[in-house]
């Protein structure tokens, strides 16, 4: 309301610590993509499954990930040509 608050802003150091804890938990556990070949392999396998049914190129797949504290999400987008090339 007055443009400033009587309480101090959350110090940036605590943000730094939280970010490190989340990241290092993922890196140490080896899940969530820290294993070097897990995601390329996942990508190849997904492409192979889709290709059993449709014609898609190598670049048609896009994998995005968001690692969270409690929950991580994996978003997989597959683009098809204008008309579905069903086999």
């Amino acid at each position, binding site marked *: 309301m007055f443009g400033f608050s009587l309480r101090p802003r959350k*110090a940036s150091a605590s943000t730094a610590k939280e*970010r490190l804890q989340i*990241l290092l938990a993922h*890196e140490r556990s080896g899940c969530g993509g820290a294993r070097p070949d897990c*995601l390329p392999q996942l990508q190849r396998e997904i492409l192979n499954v889709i290709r059993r049914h449709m014609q898609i190129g190598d670049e048609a797949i896009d994998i995005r990930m968001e690692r969270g504290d409690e929950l991580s999400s994996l978003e997989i987008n597959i683009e098809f040509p204008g008309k579905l090339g069903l086999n």
Partner: protein
Amino acid sequence: MSKNLTLEDPLGKVIVVTSGKGGVGKTTTSAAISAELARRGHKTVVIDFDVGLRNLDMIMGCERRVVFDFINVIQGDAKLKQALIRDRRLEKLAVLPTSQTRDKDALTKAGVETVLEELRQEFDYIICDSPAGIERGAQMAMHFADEAIIVTNPEVSSVRDSDRVLGLLNSITDRAGKADADPIRAQVLITRHDKARVNSGEMMTVEDVLEVLAVPLLGIIPESKAVLRASNLGVPVVLDAPSAAATAYEDAAGRLIGDQIEMRIAADPRRGLLQRLFRRAV
């Protein structure tokens, strides 16, 4: 109809941020300069060349979104487009993270060249964040560069290492090896400059450093609390609250792309009375 020829998009420029010595501010500089270039409307990508010790992702604040990396692209496990992380704050900015698990031998000259060629087609500026040292990773980061930013602290070991790196830029890079190519344009960026200590004679002056290195000056970044805060938050310093460091990086990015900006040593804004009374945390 020669006009039509000029309409073609020119290829992007590759700029390496290097230093030799570690801990002088290469990654902070890479993040700040690339964010400022993108904010000015230039399509910019920043690449982490520190294979095995990735850190640019943390400084850029995209560490939780890394899926594929530079090495996956070089080895054909992912397409470039899949490895590029689009910045959520600036539409024209992208990050290409490096691998945390491989070693520096995974960088091949041919692989790096192919990726840079592809990036030159899409981006106006390609900023290469070099690892410390002068070994393979650092050499790969500088090899295909058109320009170099040498990050130097006004301190003896840093200046000495910068001189060594300048020697490498002029001897082992692609441009150095081609008779018909212009040499790499190298400029020094002085970081952690402390005006009070310079005035009291405890720290070398900018002129001292330039006299020793004999290369043009790109900018002077003052010692500033804003740098640690930005790194804590995962925000390039130019995108965080106004600070002397942010202003200095904005000026340096402007000069890098040819703006005439007077050299100045910015000072952090003094806190207002209320802020000081309530000791707002930074």
